């Protein structure tokens, strides 16, 4: 079995984009299956081998619909683990600190790699709990997911928007970056580069949530995904995600590449010895730290040292 850090997720391999234009690049099925087999992931290779092709390339329409279904299933876990509320509990103190510091609205909250936009749509559905002048935007490379997110938001008349774009090169400035289950996709030097880009955008704060790698995580992830997921890809990638999740030290080391931010881990432990399923790496501009910690109130205990 490959080392967790070298495991591959199917969803990373079956889609490809031109990094500049974000145009879809066809993906050869054989290349993906061979790569998975060479990496010792036979089950994953079999899942991809069963996908329909157009010539030698994976069918784009099938892949898009599959990823939409997978995101729909993953939303179930977010709902069970109250992820929307968890994000809001961290977002509100950030927004309070911004107002106190006199940062001018609107406050653009941007979810990086939003998928079908669960977090942004949840926040929009609870708009009454947000202060005024908060704009909610979800961004993802995958235009099919973005289109579905937009459709879902419209179905419930939610005040939020979605873009198929690069979150770090948006025309309008972002105030706060969020992400869920994204950062473990960045490996090696890409992780540091991801955080480096934060300082270049003028964003004031960020919170990136992901699985917390604990001794329980692999078996817990397997159990939960086996019980809850229907799609084989959901089960496979869900378990691999938990195994690939970065440790706090790795995350902080990378996060400190975000210049002018003070970074720390948030919400790792229910009590000492009992880990939470998700952890967050938080970063905030120097001048906002005191206001942020004050606004956290009793939850300040969950925030480890910001440095």
């Amino acid at each position, binding site marked *: 079995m490959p080392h967790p850090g070298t495991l591959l997720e199917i969803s990373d391999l079956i889609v490809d984009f031109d990094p500049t234009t974000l145009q879809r690049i066809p993906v050869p099925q054989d290349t993906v299956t061979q790569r998975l087999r060479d990496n010792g992931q036979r089950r994953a290779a079999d899942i991809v081998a069963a996908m329909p092709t157009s010539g030698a390339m994976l069918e784009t329409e099938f892949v898009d*619909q599959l990823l*939409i*279904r997978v*995101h*729909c*299933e993953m*939303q*179930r876990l977010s709902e*069970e*683990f*109250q992820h*929307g*509320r*968890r994000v809001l*509990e961290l977002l509100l103190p950030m927004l309070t600190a911004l107002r106190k510091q006199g940062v001018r609205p609107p406050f653009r909250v941007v979810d990086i790699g939003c998928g*079908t936009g*669960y977090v942004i*749509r*949840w926040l*929009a*559905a609870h708009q009454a709990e947000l202060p005024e002048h908060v704009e909610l935007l979800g961004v993802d490379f995958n235009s099919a997911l973005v289109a*579905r997110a937009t*459709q*879902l938001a419209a*179905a*419930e008349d*939610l005040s939020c928007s979605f873009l198929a774009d690069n979150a770090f090169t948006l025309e309008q400035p972002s105030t706060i970056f969020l992400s869920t289950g994204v950062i473990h996709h960045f490996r090696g030097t890409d992780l540091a580069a991801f955080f480096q880009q934060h300082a270049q955008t003028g964003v004031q704060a960020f919170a990136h949530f992901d699985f917390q790698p604990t001794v329980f995580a692999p078996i*817990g992830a397997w*159990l*939960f995904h086996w*019980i*809850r*997921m*229907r799609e084989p890809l959901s089960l496979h990638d869900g378990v691999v995600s938990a195994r690939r999740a970065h440790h706090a030290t790795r995350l902080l080391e990378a996060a400190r590449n975000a210049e002018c931010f003070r970074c720390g881990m948030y919400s790792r432990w*229910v009590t000492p010895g009992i880990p*939470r*399923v998700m952890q967050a790496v938080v970063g905030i501009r120097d001048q906002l730290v005191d206001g942020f910690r004050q606004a956290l109130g009793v939850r300040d205990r969950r925030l480890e040292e910001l440095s």
Partner: protein
Amino acid sequence: MTALICVMYVLVTLDAAFSGICAASGRNALIRKRGYYLRSMWHGTLWGQAAVLLGLVLVTVTVQFSPNRLQAMAETQAAGWRMATVYSIYAVVVMSTFLIRAWPSVDVRSITSTVGFGPLTLIRPVVIILGIVYAAFSRPGTSILAVTIALGLMMIPFRVFLNVVFARLPVYGDPCGTSQEVTTDP
């Protein structure tokens, strides 16, 4: 006997309703889903009534055609109450977990999923089998034992069955629940 039928009816209907929620979960990506889940409970309950009817027919036919109906009735009650005991304990644990989940805390609600609903879902087939085994210790006759096993085993794949049914219903089959038949909550 009436009391046993009532208890088992409530247990089976509850299980069917919650199975409906399970079968519907992960199929709808809307945020406000109260109406969706109520509908799924209703659909699950309806299919549960089919299971109840089938069970009643099986038991009635078995007792009616037993050489000694009175003895068959007594054995059925003894086995049935044992099954009901096991399933009632499971039901109480499930309902208690729902009560705990009502606490307005992200951590408490998350914990009810990790150590409550997740494991409870996993052990449901085991609980059904435990009920059958416990019932078997009342030493019913062969035909009553066979019916007991059949009723229990019928419930094990019920959720799989509902999953298959729901996947074919338009209101659940739309990958992200944007079918016009879905009524969003206000």
